[in-house]
C-alpha cells in the first residue's frame, strides 16, 4: 500500500509527496541495514497498520457507506465513458497484463455485477470514445448481460486494431453524447457520468468549460473521472463544479476500489433551485407464475421469447421475463420487494467499529491450567504457542460480550496479543491482535468479521439482539 499522494503542509496548501524532499535523503530513510548487514525496509507496514490504513481510506472516501446517514439517490442513471483512443492502447507496468484498455474492460465487468447488486433499480450505459468521436456502446438499461456482451465485443475489436488507428480522445464529444441521453431520463433519479481515461490531452470541437459545463450543471449531471496516467485539470474542474469525484490510479487494487466506491449511491446534491424533495414513483409488484406450456413472454429490447416462468404485470397482465424492468406493454416499473430491500442498507449502514486494543496481559496472569510446562511463552515452538492461547478459552457459551472478551463475538476467533510479542519477527501475526468494538452494542469483533459485516452483510449480530 502506498502513502497518500498529497499532504497539506503548514501553510495549508496541498503539496505532493514527490515534492517533499525535507527530512533527509529518501534512500537513507527507507533502506536500512540490520546488525548482520541484511537490508531491512524500515517503512514496511505491519499488518496492523495496513489494515488501519485501508479502513481509514474507505472511511474518508466521501462516497463510502460507513456510518454516513445522508440522503442518497437510490435510483441512478449512470453512463460510463471509456477511453478507447491511442492513449489506452499502451501497456502500463502498473496495470498488468495487457493494455490499459484491457484492464479497464476487465474491471468494468466486475463493476457491472456489483453495480446491479447494490442498485437494482438503477440503469447503466456505456459510451466509448475513439478517433475523436464518441458512440454509445450499450444504451441505458437494467440488463447486465447485454452490457457484458458489449464490453466483450469492444475488447475483441480493440485487440485487432493498432494504436495508430485508435485516434484521439475527445472529452467534449463524450460528454455531449452522454448528456443528450441522460437529459431524457426522469427527474427523480440521479444522473451521473463516470469518465475512465488515460489521456493527457483532449481534442474537442469547442470549449468544454463554456459550452458543455453549463449544460451539465443545468441538467444536474454529476461527472466523476478516473485518470490512469495523470490528472487532467479539466477533469478535476468538471468534477468539482458538478459535484463528482476525481481519482488517479495508483495500482490495480486501487482502481478496483475506486470503481467499487462508484457503485455506492452518492449523497444527493443540494441546490437552491431544487430543495430536498422526494417523489412518489408508481411501481408494480408482479407475481411469478410457471405454466406447463411455454408461452411467449416479453424480454429485453422488444424481443419476445418462449418461456415457462414469467412475471405478470399487475396493471396490464402481460408477461415479462426478468425483473426489474419497465413493463413492455404499459410502462409500469416492475420490481420485487427484495430489490427495494437490497438498497436499504445504504440508508441504514452499520456503525463504524472503533479499534480497541486488548488489555495487555503479562504471561504471569494467563492461567495455565492443565497444560504441561512446555507451553511457557518463550518457547518458539508453534504448537506450544497454540496451546498457550487456547488455554485462555473455556467451554462456556458466549451469549453476550461480557462472557468472554478475548474472542470475536461473531466468529469466535480468539484475539491473541501475547502471540504478537512472542513471535514478533514475523510481521504477519500481530494483525490478529486488532480488536474492533461496535459503539452501539459494545461487542468485540475480529478484523475479518469487521470487513465482512461492513462490506457484505450490513448487519451487526450484536445490535440485532436487542
Amino acid at each position, binding site marked *: 500500500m502506498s502513502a497518500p499522494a498529497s499532504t497539506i503542509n503548514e501553510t495549508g496548501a496541498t503539496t505532493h509527496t514527490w515534492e517533499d524532499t525535507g527530512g533527509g535523503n529518501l534512500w537513507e530513510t527507507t533502506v536500512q541495514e540490520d546488525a548482520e548487514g541484511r537490508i531491512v525496509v524500515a517503512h514496511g507496514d505491519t499488518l496492523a497498520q495496513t489494515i488501519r490504513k485501508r479502513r481509514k481510506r474507505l472511511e474518508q472516501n466521501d462516497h463510502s457507506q460507513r456510518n454516513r446517514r445522508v440522503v442518497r439517490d437510490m435510483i441512478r442513471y449512470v453512463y460510463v465513458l471509456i477511453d478507447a483512443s491511442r492513449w489506452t492502447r499502451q501497456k502500463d507496468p502498473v496495470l498488468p497484463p495487457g493494455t490499459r484498455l484491457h484492464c479497464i474492460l476487465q474491471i468494468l465487468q466486475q463493476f457491472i455485477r456489483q453495480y446491479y447488486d447494490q442498485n437494482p433499480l438503477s440503469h447503466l450505459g456505456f459510451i466509448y470514445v475513439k478517433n475523436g468521436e464518441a458512440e454509445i456502446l450499450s444504451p441505458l438499461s437494467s440488463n447486465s448481460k447485454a452490457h457484458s456482451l458489449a464490453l466483450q465485443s469492444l475488447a475483441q475489436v480493440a485487440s485487432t486494431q493498432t494504436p495508430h488507428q485508435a485516434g484521439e480522445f475527445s472529452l467534449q464529444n463524450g460528454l455531449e453524447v452522454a448528456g443528450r441521453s441522460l437529459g431524457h431520463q426522469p427527474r427523480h433519479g440521479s444522473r451521473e457520468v463516470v469518465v475512465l481515461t488515460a489521456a493527457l490531452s483532449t481534442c474537442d470541437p469547442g470549449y468544454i468549460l463554456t459550452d458543455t459545463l453549463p449544460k451539465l450543471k443545468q441538467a444536474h449531471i454529476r461527472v466523476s473521472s478516473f485518470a490512469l496516467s495523470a490528472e487532467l485539470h479539466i477533469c478535476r474542474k468538471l468534477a468539482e463544479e458538478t459535484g463528482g469525484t476525481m481519482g488517479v490510479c495508483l495500482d490495480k487494487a486501487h482502481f478496483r476500489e475506486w470503481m467499487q466506491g462508484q457503485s455506492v449511491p452518492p449523497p444527493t446534491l443540494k441546490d437552491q433551485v431544487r430543495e430536498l424533495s422526494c417523489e412518489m414513483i408508481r411501481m408494480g409488484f408482479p407475481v411469478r407464475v410457471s405454466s406447463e406450456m411455454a408461452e411467449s413472454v416479453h424480454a429485453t429490447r422488444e424481443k419476445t421469447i418462449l418461456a415457462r416462468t414469467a412475471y405478470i404485470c399487475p396493471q396490464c397482465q402481460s408477461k415479462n421475463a426478468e425483473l426489474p424492468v419497465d413493463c413492455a406493454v404499459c410502462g*409500469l416499473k416492475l420490481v420485487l420487494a427484495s430489490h427495494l430491500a437490497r438498497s436499504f442498507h445504504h440508508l441504514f449502514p452499520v456503525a463504524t467499529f472503533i479499534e480497541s486494543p486488548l488489555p495487555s496481559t503479562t504471561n504471569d496472569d494467563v492461567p495455565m491450567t492443565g497444560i504441561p510446562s512446555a507451553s511457557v511463552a518463550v518457547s518458539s515452538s508453534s504448537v506450544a504457542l497454540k496451546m498457550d492461547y487456547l488455554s485462555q478459552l473455556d467451554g462456556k457459551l458466549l451469549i453476550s460480550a461480557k462472557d468472554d472478551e478475548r474472542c470475536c463475538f461473531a466468529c*469466535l476467533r480468539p484475539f491473541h496479543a501475547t502471540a504478537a510479542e512472542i513471535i514478533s519477527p514475523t510481521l504477519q501475526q500481530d494483525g490478529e491482535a486488532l480488536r474492533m468494538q461496535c459503539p452501539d452494542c459494545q461487542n468485540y469483533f475480529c478484523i475479518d468479521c469487521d470487513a465482512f459485516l461492513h462490506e457484505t452483510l450490513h448487519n451487526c449480530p450484536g445490535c440485532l439482539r436487542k
Partner: protein
Amino acid sequence: MSNPLKSKRTKNSTIQKANRNSLAVIVLDASPLAWGEHDVKRKALDRARQAAGKSSMGPAILEEVLQSVVALCNCVVSLERSSALIILAVANNECATVFPRKDQLAQWMVGSYTPNTQHISELLITGVAELLTRVVTNDKPLDPDSRQAAMAAAFSSALCLLNRMMVVARAGGISALQQPHYLERAEDEGVVAMMETSGNRNNNSSLNANSKSAWSPRILLIQASEDRARDYNAFMNCAFAAKKENITVDGCFLTASTNPKDATTSSSSRFLEQVCDLTGGVYSAPSGMAQVGGALTQVLLSVFLAPVPCRAILNLPALNKVDFRARCFETGATVDQAYVCNLCLSIFRNRPSGSYCPTCQAKIAAADPSRRKSI
C-alpha cells in the same frame, strides 16, 4: 438448482467432488414462549385424543425436537468424513453457539476434528438449557414482541462463522487482508490440513481444495416463533450475503397451529420462504402429525439431510407460491401496485394525502409536466 443435462459419469463425479467438504450450520429456535405455546396446545389436544383412544396429533414439544435434531446432526456428521457441523441456539433475544464450544472450535482449527456424536447430544442439551436459564432469569420486562426470536442475529452469526471457515480454506469469503500471502495463518492450518487429507488420496491431486465448487456450505434454520417484522431488513441483508457467498439456506418452520384458519398463529414464515427461494434451498413446514414422535426425525432426515449437489436428482418439496408482494408501510396490507418514495424507498398503497412523506418527512415534489429537461 437446475443443472444442464450432463452425461452420467460427469454428474457423478461432480457430486463426488462437491460432497467432500460440506459445511453445515444448524440454527435452532428454542424460545421459551413459543415452545410453551406448543406444549399447552399439545396437552390440550392429547387429552381429547387419548380419551378417544387415538395417538397424539399435536405439535411437537421441545424435547422431541431436540432428539430429532440430535439424530439429524449424527447423520450429517456420519455421512461424510470431511464434513463439519456447527449448531447455534436462539431464545428470544439471546443467541449462542452451542456446538462446538469456543475451546473446541479453536482446537479444531488448529489440530484435528473428530466430532463425537455423544458430545453433540450432550453439548446441545446443556447449551440449550443454559441459554434458556439465562433468558428466563433476565430481569428485563416482557415486551409484546416476546413471542418472536432473534433469528436474524443468529443468521448473521452463522454467516460470520462460515465466512471465517471459507477465508481460512481460501475458498472465497471476505477478509480484511486481501493479499494472498497474508492469508497464511498458522493458527488455522488445521482446517486446511483436515480438508485436504480427507477422502481418497487418488483423487486428491485432481481436486483443488481451494476451488469454490469443492465446497457446499449450508445453513438450516429451524424456527418455531413468529417472524419479527422489524427484522425484515436484516433478514434480507443476510439472504443477499448468503447468495453472494454461495451459501444455501434451508428453512423448517414448526408451526403450532393445527387449524389453518386460525389467525393467531401463522402456518408459514414469509421471511424463511423468501430466503429459501432466493438462495435455492428447501423449505418445509411440517404440521400436525408430521411433528410427533419419530415423524419429525423422518421429515428432517429425508428433506434436509441431502447435501446440496445431490438435490438436483432428488425429489424434494418445492416452493411453489412464494409471496413476493410488498406490504404498505401505512396500512400493512399487501399491495401489488404502490407508490414508492424515491428517497427512503417506503411503499404506500395510496398517494400520501399530505405534502410530506410519512417516513422521511421530505416534501413531496408537485407533479410538474414541464420538468423534463434535455440538453
